[in-house]
């Protein structure tokens, strides 16, 4: 039972990291109709930013959090402006190839600057473990879980209740109609990249706290898993990305604990295949046909 609760908590925490990353994939897909495969590498850059800020510049942990969010948001906007914006009218395949190119570019930039040896992510805060009813609970896990939950609540509020958030939804649904409302489609897309990348920065912090060691390819695996989570939940759907991320983290953690560490990834991707066979739009993916 103790084992079960610990697995559940770490599964939820891993899942919320996936969810944060998956949100970036799904929001960008929703508004720009493209798969931003460089998204995982934004996490890696965020993690290195944290290392430089705390370990090399000696700034306080709070600065690491704030600055890595700012750096990732700016990086996301820059990638969109330089790499994707010129391709707004291009065929989807060109955009996809470009995204993969950006991904390798970022990895190699990191390799050039930081070398291939892994670096340790600084301890931003000491969160003591605590015991609830005989179960030892990891403090970092709970912190990740709670912070992610707050971020997701704030994001949901922003998207559903604010004028800008609604405008982003409008653009993701119909660009021409949005322009006719006076909404700048380009600005909405830029904002989406900024928000998605800021969420990736939070993911980089939690990833650094949980896994500690960072190398240039660090973003690849969580990136691809979060992409899987986004498809699992229904790509383009914000609650879908949250649900998909959490479920994926839980499946992975439970497989690791109760089946086999080696098989965990195979099981995760196997479940994805199964879901897509049964429900091709993902768990919360939707399709409304146009009425005439």
């Amino acid at each position, binding site marked *: 039972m103790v084992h079960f609760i610990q697995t559940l908590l770490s599964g939820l925490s891993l899942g919320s990291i996936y969810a944060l990353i998956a949100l970036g994939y799904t929001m960008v897909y929703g508004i720009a109709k493209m798969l931003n495969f460089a998204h995982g590498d934004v996490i890696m850059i965020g993690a290195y930013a944290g290392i430089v800020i705390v370990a090399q510049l000696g700034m306080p942990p709070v600065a690491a959090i704030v600055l890595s969010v700012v750096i990732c948001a700016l990086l996301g906007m820059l990638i969109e402006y330089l790499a994707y914006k010129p391709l707004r009218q291009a065929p989807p395949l060109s955009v996809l190839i470009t995204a993969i190119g950006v991904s390798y570019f970022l990895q190699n930039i990191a390799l050039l600057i930081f070398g291939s040896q892994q670096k340790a992510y600084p301890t931003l805060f000491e969160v003591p473990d605590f015991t609830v009813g005989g179960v030892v609970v990891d403090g970092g896990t709970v912190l990740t879980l709670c912070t992610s939950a707050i971020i997701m609540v704030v994001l949901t509020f922003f998207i559903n209740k604010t*004028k800008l958030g*609604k*405008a982003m*939804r*409008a653009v993701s*649904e*119909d660009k*021409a*109609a*949005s*322009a*006719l*409302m*006076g*909404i*700048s*489609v380009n600005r909405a897309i830029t904002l989406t990249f900024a928000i998605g990348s800021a969420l990736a920065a939070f993911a980089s912090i939690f990833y650094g706290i949980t896994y500690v060691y960072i190398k240039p390819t660090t973003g690849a695996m969580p990136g691809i898993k979060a992409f899987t989570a986004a498809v699992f939940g229904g790509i383009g759907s914000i609650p879908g990305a949250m649900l998909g991320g959490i479920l994926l983290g839980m499946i992975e953690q439970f497989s690791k604990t109760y089946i086999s560490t080696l098989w965990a990834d195979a099981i995760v991707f196997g479940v994805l295949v199964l879901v897509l066979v049964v429900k091709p739009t993902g768990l919360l993916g*939707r399709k*409304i046909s*146009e*009425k*005439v």
Partner: protein
Amino acid sequence: MSEILKVSDLHVYYGSIHAVKGVSFEVHEGEVVTLIGANGAGKSTVLNTISGLLHPKTGSVSFDGHDLKGIAAHNIVRRGLAQVPEGRHVFLHMTVEENLEMGAFTQPNSTIESGIADVYERFPRLKERHKQVAGTLSGGEQQMLAMGRALMSRPKLLMLDEPSMGLAPLLVEQIFGIIRELHQSGTTILLVEQNAAAALSVADRGYVLETGRIVTSGTGAELLASPAIKKAYLGG
């Protein structure tokens, strides 16, 4: 009456296809002007060029005394030109109320509530369904929503692209009734229609578009009475 919209010698291409070939017309304040013509005559292309979604190769569009050349679509709305696009294009996943709020995107927040109240007064059906997602509305209700949404920007000129498209005759009548009401309350309207009879009956003036050119123009009554128009567009 002063001129609010002046289109001069407009040429628009889709790639190598010359869709609009030198169209000129004007709309005066308070008027309802209609562009009629068959499918593919270039009517929607003209509207989309005026609203900035398409760009002309040559020719000019002047609105409220200013040339619109090079101004992005989302900034043209701010100048008081609203378009109800062909096929309505309401935001299907958003509620009726959210759609109206988007219509008021360019307006100060303090005026949105009274704008929505005005739209509900004109379209009571929308008020009944204000929490409903637009995708669940009927075609006629979606058309009302698209019109209400455009009115939220308090336009000086309202452009309607095929508002009767795909609607049952009873609903078409209702939509044209609303156009008449809007006209009476002083709204300036540019109406594009395939349903020539209905369009000419509400219009002060009309232009007939054929394969990218204006072939005839006149008052609504004149065009309705013209034998050539009758033969080509009014079914005998």
